[in-house]
């Protein structure tokens, strides 16, 4: 199983990051290195869930403004800053959806569909891929988020837990259930 390489960092990197955070907590203008480090992945997380590129850039900026505002309250709990940023990003993103400033979009690739078809022990053919693509639309938002994070973005359960504010075990159980639900929709369609 692959993991998100940026999420997992060695201790030296985490220590370096802690230094940046301490400096930013004293002077928000010193947040620069953290911004540079995480801008792209936070942007990709947001853009992955919407259609408008410029709006995604705006929401990304908003995420970092919020992060700057709250950096003084940030406490290190053994995880990289990214998990905290993802939580802010999720909150900003869904606020934009609620305010109808952005349209919730699921962006996926053919290869994701192929992998998922395999995961469901089905033949990896165009027909099955199309069927899967069509039944994905039956999932509710919560299950869709889990499938996106786990199977399209290949994130670890720990990271999913951090983003969705769940325990690692809970993230695992819920992801499994979401997959089971998807399988059921898939079989029912046959």
């Amino acid at each position, binding site marked *: 199983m692959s993991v998100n390489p940026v999420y997992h*960092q060695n201790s030296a990197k985490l220590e370096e990051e802690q230094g940046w955070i301490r400096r930013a907590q004293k002077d928000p203008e010193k947040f620069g290195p953290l911004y540079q480090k995480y801008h792209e992945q936070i942007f990709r997380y947001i853009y992955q869930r919407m*259609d408008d590129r410029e709006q995604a850039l705006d929401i990304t900026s908003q995420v970092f403004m919020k992060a700057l505002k709250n950096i003084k309250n940030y406490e290190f709990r053994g995880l990289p800053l990214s998990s905290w940023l993802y939580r802010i990003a999720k909150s900003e993103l869904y606020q934009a959806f609620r305010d109808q400033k952005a349209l919730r979009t699921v962006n996926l690739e053919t290869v994701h569909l192929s992998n998922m078809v395999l995961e469901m022990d089905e033949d990896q053919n165009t027909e099955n891929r199309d069927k899967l693509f069509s039944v994905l639309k039956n999932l509710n938002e919560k299950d869709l988020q889990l499938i996106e994070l786990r199977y399209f973005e290949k994130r*670890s359960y*720990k990271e999913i837990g951090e983003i969705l504010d769940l325990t690692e075990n809970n993230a695992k159980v819920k992801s499994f259930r979401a997959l089971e639900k998807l399988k059921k929709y898939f079989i029912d369609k046959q």
Partner: protein
Amino acid sequence: MKTKFNLDRKPLDSSFIQSRQDFDKVIKGYQAMKPPLWKNPWFYGPVGLASLALVLTITFQNNFFAGENNSTLVAKAQNKDNQTLEDTPCIKSVSENSDIPFEKFTIDPKNGGKVITVNGSIIDIPKGSLLADKNGQVTIQVREFADPSEAFTAGIPMDFEKTSAFESGGMIEIRGEQNGQAISIDPKKPIKVDMTLQKSGDGFKFWAMNDKNGEWTEYPCNIKEVSSAKVTTKFPDNSKIISQVVEIKAEIENCEKEIVELKKAEEKEALIPSQSARKLVVEFDQGSFPELAGYKEVEFEYLLPKDQTQANMSAFKKRIEYASSQTWYDMDVSKGKTDYVVTFKNSKENFSIPVKPVLKGKSLAKLDQELKKAKADKQTQIVKLEEERIALLKRDQALKLKYETEVNDIKNQLNSYVPASQNQELAQRSVASTSAQSVNAAGANLSNTRGNFLTNNFGVFNCDKPVSYPKPFNQPILCKNEDGVRINVAGAYVFDQKQNTRFTFGEINFHKIQDLAWIKRNKSTLIVIDQKGDLYYKQEINDDPLNDSAVILKRIGRENVNLETIQKILSENSITA
């Protein structure tokens, strides 16, 4: 929620995303989000007091104020940018960006004490005079208004009995609070104020302001010239030194913290694979094992028994053979209290064997080399931080020495210049405290005119002479901007420089906008605030209004309205807005 599904959207290139990074925009956005500190209620509450206490503790612990006599004077922490009190209902600063800061003094209400302001005013608080929790500290906050621009910026009403405005000879505002709550004074034990006045003479009387409605009533005060000697002592500003010392202390603390963390950081053992042990290929979630997150590629090998007797080894082999012979549909790695365990699962059973994580494909020599390098890097970092810490300590010492030198200079200056009648007392206080109070003046002069009064109310006190309002012109004055557009005036203020008086017109005052007028023979400046808070001004309006009864004013955006701008308008002939 409506959801759209896209298949195979064109991926975005990293270089594009990086090209759209704009940290300046984020910083500007953040600054726009940040409310002014003085609007934060916590500033005046426990956090404000706690911060003050922390600064004082740090300062005292380091014997910063050597030889202080706590019973006479209590130290002051000064940060002028953050010293704005929540104003009373009738005192509203002219702009949200600017207000006149208070000086803050901490007093023990049980023992009372004396404070000396930057202008040389002395407030004597008797024991038990302050009605507050005797176990806590009280903050006395004082500000004095040296000129019309300061009183205007602070928003102090300057009208008297609807017909006159005050020509000020000196004004002081005194407030007391404990834990963010206003306190009062025991009527039987009034506080004594010895106030420095800028001006006195014929027509000048002493007044106290009613906080609720801004009206002034005459107040008993003994105004006197204490000496004819001109006092020109200038006090150096030590606030920068104080803030530098505090900053350096924080840096030293950070340095020390980082060193401790580095020293105590557990040196992770390299996960060196055994030469002969059997490897196990298991897919596992690295996120489940944060301690392994630092290693790029990890695999597991069976953990040999600690006591490798023949019997133990034979049992170990049997377990492995059993594991290899069965069909399992799942494997899972977990961590117990100390060891990792792999669990094989099928429909009949769960079968566990202890395992050990090892680095994939690493030679022993290479691992050893990496470990040594990591240790050396850490040591270099510690040495660097130690050097930084020593440099900071030296800087700290140098600043303290500089401060002490300045304090000694002040003592000498006070002994030389203070009027004879007060010389002894002031000098004693200064020597006793060597604290911020008596020396914390930025270029203030000691005046030789004093106003002595007793009060059992906190508030604003003023030595003033009432000056009559000018009669309205025949036609109401129109205020226009430089484009000729009429200004939607909320308040208009005429600063009569000859009479050193501010006449106020507008909805906040008895005198309506249509009554706007000035005395043409006097040099006056007109300042107008519109409904949005933008400021407009015109200097030397003596000959205005012109034929069409309009005055053309220059605009200053509300974001630039502050004391400095107002002082420039009132003191210079031109200003770059």
